[in-house]
């Protein structure tokens, strides 16, 4: 199925948001996840099934400034 990840369309196998994070080797504690413009609680990463056409945003911490 196809989902949009950070603005780019991608073909994925399906599964939960946590599965997708694992597939991309992203540490769940380092990212805030928005699915279809709504922030996901970290505890829901595991229980949220992705659906065809979902818009997923992985928002990484961006520090720095000095």
């Amino acid at each position, binding site marked *: 199925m196809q989902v949009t990840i950070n603005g780019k369309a991608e073909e994925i196998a399906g599964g939960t948001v946590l599965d997708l994070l694992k597939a991309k080797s992203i540490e769940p504690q380092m990212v805030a996840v*928005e699915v279809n413009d709504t922030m996901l609680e970290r505890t829901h990463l595991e229980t949220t099934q992705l659906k065809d056409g979902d818009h997923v945003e992985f928002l990484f911490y961006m520090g720095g400034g000095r």
Partner: protein
Amino acid sequence: MEFTETQINRYSRHILLPEVGGKGQKKIIQGKVLIVGAGGLGSPAALYLAAAGIGTIGLIDSDVVDLSNLQRQVIHQTPDVGRPKVVSGKEKIQALNPDVNVVMYEERLTAGNALKIMSGYDVVIDGVDNFPTKFLINDACYFAGKPLVHGGILRFDGRVTTIIPKKSACYRCVFKKPPPEGLVASCQEAGVIGVLAGIIGTIQATEALKLILGIGRPLTDRLLDFDARRTQFREIRIKRNPDCPLCGERPTITELIEDGDVGGPTCALPGQRNL
């Protein structure tokens, strides 16, 4: 107040703009902006706000200028190495525009001093390099009811967003708490392309000016991410989160706290380049 001849001349390109005019320029001259961190983001923000004629600029920074700062912190110059950043910053601002009143705070922003310092300002600009202080600024602006222009830069990426407390999404609506310390590398390790500070810092200054003028559409409920490799901006819609620990329906943060250890500068993002 009436403009002097010098002011009419200095600010003529602003006054010519229908959205600014004499009335708007007076708002700018009466405006007070607090810049937390006189470094990469704070430098261009301070210089452009000074050029614009912002009446009062507050600079908070406890550091002295280091040679490695000069790659991006354009308010400081080679002879300033070793001097307090707030002193160096004040000199450059006043050389550019002697009308600006610069208030120096040669200290760290803390839960103890933040609300008192912020109370005298209209807008706060986040130009700090560590997460605990970014969260502290977010929280303090919320409790003080001050609009905040948040910014961050790292490697080739930058981010900016404007937060109007109780009206638009705050930093904790997206990121509930600072990242675990063990997972974050230091800025020195991560590096940053210097020009990013100029790009993001001047957007922060633009947002501050718009807020003071009351014009346009603020960068609220949106994260504006910039990728310098591709020269691409991307806007991510965000919204107030009912579960936000600060501004949500059942807040758990009810007074100013220091969340995490304000140690060295921290900024890396493991995983981001996997996308």
